[in-house]
């Protein structure tokens, strides 16, 4: 892969909202050949800054600083299936581990200008169960009794070996642990009601899904167990949200009221689109009665439904807590008509931007309701045609709620044209103008936010390039 990297520092205008000034963002562009290239953070030197690793097919490259050329890149051998970056020999510098056809390989990291990478060394052979058409990141290097070791998943469980291949421990896969993924049920067969590949009436068609492997229970000493994320809730299609309004609030889709584990998953925000226009959202809040720990069978109270103008942006992976008080907040979108005249509307369309109004309503724990007045209104615009094909129930594309600048708060990012991305940083409210907006040469198809030591890396995925945004700091 030929990766090109260049930095563009953007000077940003002052923000209207009170509080600290927002930082600018530095943008780097990394060309990729595979749209599904893996991007992850890695540390090449002990105590050194984190760098961005890109695994594009079988080409692995590192970008150790924004604005720099890739510091290192190598082609993994054909058949490589898993890749890790960690210090395996305690020399303070990271090595690259890869599994290739049952062999565990070690590559040395060679910084730019220090010559071509050396051939890999075979550490040992092991019949790993990791396989696939192209490699993907996998944690293999782990600390074990004060030394570096390598964790290898085998057919019968996880095996811990020294870098020389000595077996240090085995963790057999004895039980069917709860699946990591909801769809990974041990076995499920579903009859297709109306045959798709066969003739109706004279054929039987099944869809079979199975996740046949038992999973070993790994001890804490292999690394801290990942805490279970807060239950985000149950959402639904726009059609379901419209239908929900005719049912009682307890059956509406919902998301968790609290963003942490406090209060458990039992306090919920139920929501439905309000007829007849479905341009408002009815909200009913289910809270626990007082006394005792939260349990599913404790008494709940469900607040009367309150109507908020706009369509709720239903939370998905991230529960939006803009003011960091531990309670989920509401983000709603609405579309005012851009002027009363055809001329005004035409002008809005010609500018490629049909108005969209985003509003934030904060939860008031004392009152137990969402504030009637929005704390922020963000005016933006999207192509008119995006209203025809909504994405997750909203006309914006790539709507991302995440901490973009590393201050621990929840910010807002979205595309309001196919090849652009805008970020609004939350500073006791959102400013009307974005903190960052930039056009790109290609359609932004997806976003990822990678946590780093200080400031996150915001990765925008195009078809042939990744655009990496990092906040510059105050």
């Amino acid at each position, binding site marked *: 892969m030929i990766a090109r990297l260049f930095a563009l520092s953007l000077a940003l205008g002052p923000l209207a909202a009170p509080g600290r000034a927002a930082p600018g963002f530095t943008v780097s562009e990394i060309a990729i050949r595979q749209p599904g290239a893996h991007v992850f953070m890695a540390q090449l030197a002990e105590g050194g800054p984190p760098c961005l690793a890109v695994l594009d097919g079988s080409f692995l490259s590192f970008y150790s600083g924004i604005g720099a050329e890739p510091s290192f890149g190598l082609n993994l051998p054909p058949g490589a299936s898993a890749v890790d970056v960690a210090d395996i020999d305690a020399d303070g510098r990271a090595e690259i581990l890869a599994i290739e056809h049952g062999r565990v390989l070690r590559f040395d990291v060679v910084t730019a200008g220090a010559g071509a990478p050396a051939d890999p060394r075979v550490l040992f052979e092991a019949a790993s169960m990791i396989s696939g058409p192209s490699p993907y990141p996998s944690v293999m290097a782990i600390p074990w009794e004060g030394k570096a070791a390598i964790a290898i998943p085998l057919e019968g469980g996880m095996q811990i070996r020294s870098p020389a291949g000595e077996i240090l421990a085995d963790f057999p896969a004895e039980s069917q642990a709860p699946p990591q993924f909801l769809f990974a049920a041990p076995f499920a067969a579903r009859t297709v009601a109306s045959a798709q590949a*066969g003739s109706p009436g004279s054929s039987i068609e099944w869809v079979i899904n199975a996740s046949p492997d038992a999973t070993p229970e790994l001890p804490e000493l292999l690394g801290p167990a990942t805490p279970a994320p807060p239950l985000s809730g149950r959402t639904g299609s726009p059609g379901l949200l419209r239908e929900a309004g005719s049912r009682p609030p307890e059956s509406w889709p919902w998301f968790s009221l609290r963003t942490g584990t406090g209060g458990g998953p039992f306090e919920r925000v139920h929501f439905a689109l309000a007829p007849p226009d479905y341009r408002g959202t009815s909200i009913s809040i289910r809270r626990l009665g007082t006394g005792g720990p939260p349990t599913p069978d404790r008494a709940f109270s469900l607040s009367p439904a309150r109507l908020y103008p706009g369509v709720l942006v239903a939370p998905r992976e991230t529960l939006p807590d803009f003011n960091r008080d531990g309670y989920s907040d509401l983000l709603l979108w609405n579309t005012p008509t851009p002027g009363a005249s055809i001329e005004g509307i035409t002008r809005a369309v010609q500018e490629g931007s049909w108005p969209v109004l985003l509003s934030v309503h904060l939860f008031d724990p004392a009152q137990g309701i969402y504030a009637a007045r929005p704390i922020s209104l963000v005016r933006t615009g999207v192509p008119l045609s*995006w209203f025809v094909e909504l994405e997750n129930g909203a006309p914006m594309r790539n709507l991302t709620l995440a901490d973009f600048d590393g201050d621990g708060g929840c910010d807002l990012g979205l595309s309001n044209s196919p090849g652009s991305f805008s970020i609004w940083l939350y500073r006791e409210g959102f400013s009307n103008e974005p903190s960052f907006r930039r056009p790109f040469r290609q359609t932004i198809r997806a976003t990822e936010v990678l946590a780093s030591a200080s400031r996150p890396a915001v990765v925008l995925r195009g078809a042939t390039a990744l655009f990496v945004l990092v906040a510059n700091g105050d």
Partner: protein
Amino acid sequence: MIAAALVSLFGALRFSGEDLTGLTAGSTDPLTGRAALHAIQADLDGDGAMDLMLPAEVWLQRAGTYPRTHRVALPRAGECPNYDTQPEGIMARLPGSLEAYALEGGAWRNVLAQPIEWPDAAERAAAAEPGHAPSIERFLHDIDSDSIPEILVPGPGGVYLYRKNGGLYALDSVLRVYPAAQTLPVTLGVLWPPGARRPGFPVRQMNCRILVEGGQLTVLQRQEIPADQILYTITRHNLAAVLPGEQPGILDQFTTGPMPEFVAPVRLNEDGSVDFAGGDWNYSDATPLPTPIFRTVASTNRGESMQSIRTQSFRPRCSFFDVNGDGRVDAIAEHMKLFDGGVREAVNRFATQRTIDHEIRVHYQDEAGIFSRMPSIRHLVRIDLGRPAIRGGSQFEQYRSGGMIDVSGDFDGGGLADLLVQDRSDRLTVFLNRGGAFSGEPGAEIPLPPGARHTVADVNGDGYSDIVIAWKSEVPESEESTRVYFARGGR
């Protein structure tokens, strides 16, 4: 008594409307045009007419409809079995047992009761718990054409095949036809931050689709490959010749070329092989407005080449159906004319007009499996949304989701697919296919209750497509009502 029969009062076609609340239909499959009736159609009383087996009762057909006086509760329904139909009646899979019943004089007579172990025993036991409903899923199939159906049940180790021998069914073979599990290419473990690194264990999954048809069992396995593409490996087994306790021989196996990830296996013609089809959205910058383009994609040669048809701003309810009745499935594209013309024109339409012009385009498939580049049929209809598109609302949402146009029904039994349009919130209109064109004059008009959705299916199996209409009243928590308009041919 069945509610009032209602005959359409307009046009060349006759429909009679019957209230059949309890019968439900799923949405239309966009790749086959078939809607899943939540019922099995079979002649259970031997009168030659298609009866309906619903999850809790059988509706017997009389004079082309299903009178309330001819409904029979299913035996053992309280134990929530899995029911299927066979030539002599019905069969019920219960926890640890199998029972069969014949319908005689309006009552069930038990003709088989035997113990048997099922591979999905835990599922069957769970289904028998209170709060569950019986299921009507096919498990009977005559694999060797001896008029005695075999039982096929997928289980964790394979497909369990039971044969009837000496009057009782017994396990014959476990057909180990599932493909090997594949490792999911997802990041394993926690990579960052360095202090929180932790290894993960790979997740392997086996996903496949299995088709049992005639004496063959076909396994279709999807495999994701880089660049958002997929391959399918298709293995056909000779089920008819499998001997007791043995595995079926492989008739043939092939792997397709790379295909877009959104295609799925379908049957597009009668050449006996599996085809592939699907559709996805793109955006065009060629028009004054950045307009979404829907691309319909099909392969009739095992994925070796893909044919595509592009249309503006509309995903049809059904993209493939045999419109001209030649046995080959044709491609259907629809064009929303809302954004046609210049910007000002489009805006004027969007902001002020309550009607939308909509074009249906049919591309015939020829003998070589090629879809015509230019539409073989173009037909323009006007749909009244009741308010300008800019104001949204349920009508516009229903239109946008493809729910107002259907080209999967043959209402006059002529062997050609006719056009059904919900051209107003309170009306469905049928335009008959006159061979090469849809009629410009309505063949029938069907009234619609507020908020109703419709599905096309031949409910009574008489060769005429019927229209299933379902709606809920505005009373909260009210049950969904169903009315079926049975097509009765021309006047």
